[in-house]
């Protein structure tokens, strides 16, 4: 799957753990249920975790310093829980690594994701990147603070979007 980061398509080098199969060598993504198994690996490769929208962020508190990537999954674009999960990862747990959004996402949600702390988005193969770029540039102002700490725009909570 292509990955969108800062308006560019980048290569996804992570492997996803396969059910009922030992974890492979190299950078691997595990579901929350296999987190301890991932943490128990004795190698230098990186570890990431895939959360469902119903999972509690708090479950990652202890493991987070050893994680490089958290994937938040949208079962359907209307399920807004990953927005709160992303913001909680950044704001409460001060996670500095990559937060990736996956699943059913609309380009119209891209700016919201970024402002909640998501850094990369998994896109379907063959997607029209210009629609996502366009969505990112649609607005030059927002009306509330975000974890990105954008510059104030005039007064109140208005923020200037890049």
């Amino acid at each position: 799957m292509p990955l969108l980061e800062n308006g560019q398509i980048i290569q996804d080098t992570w492997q996803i753990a396969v059910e009922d199969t030992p974890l492979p060598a190299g950078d691997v993504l595990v579901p929350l249920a296999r987190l301890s198994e991932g943490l128990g690996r004795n190698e230098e490769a990186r570890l990431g975790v895939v959360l469902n929208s119903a999972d509690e962020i708090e479950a990652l508190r202890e493991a987070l310093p050893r994680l490089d990537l958290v994937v938040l999954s949208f079962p359907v674009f209307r399920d807004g829980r990953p927005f709160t999960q992303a913001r909680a990862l950044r704001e409460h747990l001060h996670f500095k690594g990559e937060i990736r959004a996956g699943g059913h996402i609309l380009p119209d949600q891209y700016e919201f994701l970024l402002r909640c702390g998501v850094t990369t988005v998994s896109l379907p193969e063959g997607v029209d990147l210009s629609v996502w770029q366009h969505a990112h540039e649609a607005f030059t102002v927002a009306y509330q603070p975000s974890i990105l700490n954008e510059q104030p725009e005039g007064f109140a909570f208005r923020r200037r979007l890049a």
Partner: protein
Amino acid sequence: MPHVMTQPALPVGHYAYDSVDRTFLKQRVAQFKDQVERRLSGALTEEEFKPLRLMNGLYLQLHAYMLRVAIPYGVLDAAQMRTLAHIARTYDRDYGHFTTRQNIQFNWIRLEDTPEILTVLAEADMHAIQTSGNCIRNVTADQFAGAAADEVLDPRVYAEILRQWSTLHPEFTFLPRKFKIAISGSKQDRVAARFHDIGLIAREGENGRPVFEVFVGGGLGRTPAIGTRLRDDLPEEDLIAYLEAILRVYNAHGRRDNIYKARIKILVQALGAEEFFNQVNAEFSAMDRARYRLPEATVEAIRARFGTPDFAPAGDAAEKLNAQRKADQVFDAWVATNTHAHKQPGYCSVTVSCKPTGGIPGDVTSAQMDLLADLAERYSFGELRITHLQNVVLGHVRQDALYEVWQALAQNGLGTANIGFMTDIIACPGLDYCALANARSIPIAQKLSARFGSADLQRKIGPLRLNISGCINACGHHHAGHIGILGVDKRGEEAFQITLGGSSGGEDASIGQILGSAMSEDETVDAIARIIDTYLSRRTAGERFIETCRRLGTAPFKDAAYAPA
């Protein structure tokens, strides 16, 4: 005309947009145009497009699209009202419908006209953002804000702060369900604060800055509930942070498996008020409070964007009014019902009834909108308010101008003297328009309005709130009516249940009780007539309808309602 006013630089009563706000609205219109094109090209499925159009106020009803235009905290200026009149004339069937969220709906809109309508609105600093969808909706406020003699502080500045904060909020635009906030700055709760997802009542704090009482989890719909008081004295600087905390708990834990159990009231009930309070506090304590702090300077910067009326000395306005009232009984009756005490000597607020006898509650023609704009400009500093009871308020009218205002209103079908009386009916659009409805709300409202339309009879009956919903979703607030009417489907026929004893206001907020099985439209009208007769014969001196209901309970009214003809 003795009272022609010069318009101040800033609009009175609502926030004045600047170039940044106007740029944002243009970008929003462009975004919607793009979404419509992507829908037409197939890049967006109907399932994906639906929430996006809803968040621009566009519903698909039974016969056409409906566009709901936002009127933040119910306040608009004369130029904006003329824009609404223009939209009614040009894109609809020459009328609009004021709603219980202080917005306006146009019922006969074509999808392909919508981007153009949004452009016309944007040119008047208006929009339809978040008037529908599972997001934070239009924040409602006291219709007498900034005017009422009983007001402690003007809630509209805070309503505007909440409007801006909630606009395209990155975290709270895909909530489990819609989210409604109301704010009042008076001890007289005129916003039904306890029937909102969040209700706020502002008062002066000890340091001279406001504090807020916070109610959460109230609402109507299938599961009516009275809100729980979470905070008694939330400081101004924590207002946004605390609301963020409530919304985060709701967004993370509100139910998403059943839309009828997805409102925050269900979460509050499931967790229990104490556990919900603890979860909100845990979030509130953990969050970056500096980021979400609402500084005094920000409040004052927003306040500085509001125009304020430049009142004239009272002079002999009150004496002139008294003489005019003595000379004209009909005028006197209208003043008694349709005016509200103002904090400024020599002024009062006028409630213009959009409920003419036998008419459709809340419907106003484009010509009436233009007249209201003219009157606002001439007599009320260019300012108009829409009330959650579906009427229009001229907030600041000199007492010696009332007679002229009343004459102009009466000549144009807007002079009905029934505010607070039985024919001041709240009604949803019902099955005439709405795809969700089980029954038509409008014809029964018209029949009741005609049946009880006599000015003498209404005055004799006294204060009585009659609310009609065409289905269990309760857009007509039937649970909160002293008399409520709920449209149901009874074996394929439209039928109506009667509830009794509801009330939306303040400490005595209550939910109406169902009297019994549903009846046909005409049977319901007759049953209500017998309920009124029972009240008139059983009331004690000076006892209002709701008080008699509470004293006697529902039994005698039930007997009357179901008495054989």
